[in-house]
């Protein structure tokens, strides 16, 4: 049998043990009782035997004394002397009835006469009497038993003296049940007299046993060849008797036995009470022990069961269960260890969960958590018919920030933005970090209008620069919105749509953008354009446009920036915004750059033939800078067109340099060594360090149009521009201002000493064929251009 639980095992083991001990105790007790009872009964039997013999002796003595009285009676003796038979017989009769004897016999010595009183003939009596008389003198106190007519008698012979022996008195008592009872009373033994005539069957003459028992005893003797006189255990019916057999009489004819018995069974039954008491005590003890064992096993096993239950709960992820224990033993230690293990697992799991659903940098939920939460919210809102809004926000140019300021500050920036965002929303809203520089906001229960309001509020966060490590950093962000249920009814779709809106916002710098189904079409358009771009490059669908740069001081000294346009056979003119990012991603930009260089060379050559010496600036991208073959390719083009190196200049953005500053620097040095003039484009929007810029072979800075466009109204922009101009000059660089749209700005810049200007005020980007006529027109009007007039 197997017991699955520790508790059962403890109970079974200990109960078996205690039961075994109790039984092991009972067996010796049983044995000892048995042995003692037998010993006791044996002793009692010995004592009883003595009492029995003593009793018979004293019986004999009593009879003897009675007989002696008669024997000494003078008259009786006189009757004997006179041989008066009748008198003798009457005296015997009288005597017999007086002492209740069964037999009284007188035997006269002188004339060998015999007088018998009792149920006996002289012939029967004679041999017995002679025998008695013969043996009388040999032992003084002899108990004689004889059997007359199959009846046993106890006989006493007393001599009659006058004064020598003249005769004998023989007195006999029948051995009957009364005698047996009397003996039984005094000796406490069962007494049975058994007799047997020669070769005859055993008979019970008298007994204190029941008739059945007597028969059983007789049966025992019948089957015993030679009756044993020693103590013997005799089984009589259901009782076991310790028995002792005395031979009272044994001659050739008859045998008389006295069987003395004491019941062992009866004696043992006296101990039965003791046994029952022991048994009750044992059962009671077992009961008490069982209760104690159950208590102890509970005490031991219950906490273990609790532990295993708790372990199962742990397995299911329930870490709330605490095992209460005030025990100081091993179980207590185990419970405490278990608790601390559970805490450790819970902590670790929480950590894992955090890692899975949490962003440690911003201390915000991550994308997975956001989608999960969004899904839950949608499910909940679906039932209640509530709307919700998600806002996706992406920081502009975060990569540059990270590159330039280092990852720690980048993280700090992300964190700051996260804090600001969190401050803007309600508690049941969610702010998550969806990607490197992208945040997601879930506005629970916000509809379209509310969502837009929040989005615009968010945008205001970025109006002010963020203080970061003692630097003020201008951060802008694209913001996309999608509203449930209008813009999608699944978490994925909603998020996708919000990100599409974000993408639009980013690409157009248009701030808050609400998702529109049309965006998807636009994006598809972009994608198809991208696939067509390669053909476009080879199929000469691209066109080079020129935007003039003018010397602010002389109003002449022209140069131009080459800009690419895609003349799509079906869609017409496509602006670079729509395909350049894709070209950057795919690497097609390198082909575009080379095409631009070739085209610039060709244009330069053509204009030269018309007498216009124009330096054309070509934009080069990051991919060009990290391409170590790029300078060789440039050189090959120059050689092919056979033009001077100063005919073409290169423009690079700050950010393009920062992707791989080392290789970029090496490439730029090689290009510069070839005699190419290099300008930094969009200066002021990146985060390039001046120390680094100083090392580059740069000849020109182009101030970003965002500073220039509203200069006349914005003093800060003016200061920045002026500082940049001064900075450029101090570094011995020419400074170009982009985005000049009116005469006022022109004037301010001219006053500042800015070297060149570029903008709609002077001229929009134009096909090369239009450049001659623009030049003519500009020269015509610019000579009259006076600040006064222009400002008017």
């Amino acid at each position, binding site marked *: 049998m197997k017991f699955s639980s520790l508790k059962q095992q403890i109970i079974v083991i200990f109960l078996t043990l205690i039961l075994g001990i109790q039984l092991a105790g009972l067996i010796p007790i049983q044995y000892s009782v048995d042995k003692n009872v037998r010993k006791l009964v044996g002793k009692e039997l010995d004592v009883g035997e003595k009492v029995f013999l003593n009793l018979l002796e004293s019986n004999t003595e009593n009879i003897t004394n009675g007989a002696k009285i008669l024997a000494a009676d*003078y008259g009786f*003796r*006189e009757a*004997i*002397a006179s041989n008066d038979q009748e008198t003798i017989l009457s005296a015997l009769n009288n005597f017999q009835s007086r002492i209740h004897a069964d037999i009284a016999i007188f035997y006269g010595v002188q004339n060998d006469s015999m007088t018998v009183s009792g149920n006996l003939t002289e012939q029967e009596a004679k041999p017995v009497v002679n025998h008695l008389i013969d043996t009388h003198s040999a032992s003084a106190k002899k108990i004689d038993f004889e059997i007359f007519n199959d009846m046993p008698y106890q006989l006493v012979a007393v001599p009659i*003296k*006058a*004064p*020598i022996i003249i005769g004998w008195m023989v007195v006999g008592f029948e051995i009957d049940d009364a005698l047996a009872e009397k003996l039984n009373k005094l000796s406490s033994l069962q007494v049975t007299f058994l007799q047997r005539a020669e070769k005859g069957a055993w008979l019970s003459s008298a007994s204190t046993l029941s008739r059945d028992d007597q028969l059983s005893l007789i049966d025992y003797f019948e089957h015993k060849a030679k009756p044993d006189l020693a103590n013997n255990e005799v089984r009589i019916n259901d009782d076991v008797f310790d028995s002792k057999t005395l031979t009272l009489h044994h001659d050739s004819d008859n045998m008389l036995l006295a069987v003395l018995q004491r019941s062992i069974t009866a004696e043992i039954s006296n101990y039965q009470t003791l046994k029952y008491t022991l048994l009750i005590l044992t059962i009671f003890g077992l009961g008490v022990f069982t209760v104690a064992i159950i208590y102890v096993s509970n005490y031991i096993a219950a906490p273990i069961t609790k532990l295993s239950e708790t372990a199962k709960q742990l397995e299911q992820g329930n870490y709330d269960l605490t095992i209460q224990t005030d025990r100081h033993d091993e179980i207590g230690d185990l419970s405490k260890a278990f608790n601390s293990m559970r805490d450790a697992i819970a902590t670790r799991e929480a950590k894992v969960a955090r890692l899975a659903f949490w962003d440690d940098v911003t201390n915000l939920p991550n994308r997975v958590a956001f989608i999960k939460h969004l899904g839950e919210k949608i499910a909940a809102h679906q039932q209640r018919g509530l709307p919700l809004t998600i806002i996706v926000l992406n920081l502009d140019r975060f990569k540059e920030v990270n590159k330039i300021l280092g990852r720690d500050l980048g993280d700090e920036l992300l964190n700051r933005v996260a804090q600001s965002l969190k401050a803007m929303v309600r508690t049941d809203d969610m702010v998550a970090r969806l990607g490197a520089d992208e945040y997601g906001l879930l506005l629970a229960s916000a509809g379209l209008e509310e969502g837009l309001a929040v989005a615009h509020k968010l945008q205001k966060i970025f109006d002010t620069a963020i203080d970061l490590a003692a630097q003020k950093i201008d951060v802008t962000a694209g913001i996309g919105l999608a509203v449930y249920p209008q813009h999608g009814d699944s978490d994925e779709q909603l998020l996708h749509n919000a990100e599409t809106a974000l993408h639009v916002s980013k690409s157009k710098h248009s701030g808050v953008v609400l998702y529109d189904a049309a965006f998807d079409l636009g994006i598809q358009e972009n994608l198809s354009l991208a696939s067509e771009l390669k053909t476009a490059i080879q199929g000469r669908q691209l066109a080079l446009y020129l935007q003039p740069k003018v010397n602010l001081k002389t109003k002449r000294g022209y140069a131009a920036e080459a800009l690419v346009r895609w003349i799509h056979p079906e869609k017409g003119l496509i602006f670079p915004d729509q395909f350049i990012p894709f070209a950057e991603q795919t690497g097609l930009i390198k082909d575009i750059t080379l095409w631009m260089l070739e085209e610039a060379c060709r244009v330069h050559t053509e204009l030269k033939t018309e007498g216009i010496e124009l330096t054309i600036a070509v934009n080069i991208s990051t991919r060009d800078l990290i391409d170590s073959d790029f300078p060789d390719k440039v050189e090959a083009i120059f050689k092919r067109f056979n033009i001077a190196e100063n005919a073409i200049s290169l423009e690079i953005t700050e950010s393009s340099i920062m992707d791989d500053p080392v290789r970029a620097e090496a490439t730029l040095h090689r290009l510069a060594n070839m005699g190419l003039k290099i300008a930094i484009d969009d200066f002021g929007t990146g985060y390039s360090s001046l120390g680094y810029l100083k090392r580059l072979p740069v000849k020109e800075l182009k101030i970003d149009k965002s500073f220039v466009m509203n200069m006349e109204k914005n003093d800060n922009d003016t200061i920045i521009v002026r500082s940049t101009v001064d900075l450029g000059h101090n570094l011995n660089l020419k400074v170009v201002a982009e985005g000049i749209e009116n005469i006022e700005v022109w004037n301010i810049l001219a006053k500042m000493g800015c070297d060149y200007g570029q903008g709609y005020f002077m001229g929009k980007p134009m096909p090369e064929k239009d450049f001659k006529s623009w030049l003519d027109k500009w020269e015509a009007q610019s000579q009259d251009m006076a600040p006064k007039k222009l400002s008017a």
Partner: protein
Amino acid sequence: MTTLADYRTLVPWAFLILCGVHQGHAAELLVEVQDSKGAKLKDAVVFVENTKTAGIAPTVGYELEQKSKQFNPQVSVVQVGTSINFPNRDKVRHHVYSFSSAKKFELKLYSGVPANPVLFDKAGTVVLGCNIHDTMLAYVYIVDTPYFAKTDSNGVAKLANVPEENYTLKVWHYALQQENKVVEQSISVKSSNKAIPVKLEINHANLIQGE
């Protein structure tokens, strides 16, 4: 000092001496009685009989006293016709009786000397007892001859002045194996005779102790 009894015992001796002288030669007869193992037997009664010895009257009475709750002597031999007196010399009273066929009598409780002596007129054995005191026992053996004697402690009986004739020698003892079976043998008494040895089968259990 000579007592009355002494005188009485002297009487037969004197008579025998006279007779012997009167009838010619007389001799002294010595009989040595032993038991079967050769031990000397005391108180055996030895006497001789022939046709001439019966019917001779005894000359003198006999005294059998009771003293210290005992008969004294315990064994007596007397001639037929002897009167025996039973003086009680104890302070307690005695009840002397005999159920013997040779002489039945009883002297009911008495003290001192009874008025009449008891005449033993038949030969035989008389066993005397006291009805009060069971241990008192005496044997009186009555012979019909003047020639008798008791063995002394040496087992020797001396019969004096026995005429030199042929006799039947008889020996009796109270503890004979076969009760009252007198041992007999024919003898011829002569002066030159030596002591005659007689062996008796004795039941030692019946011997009176202390005698």
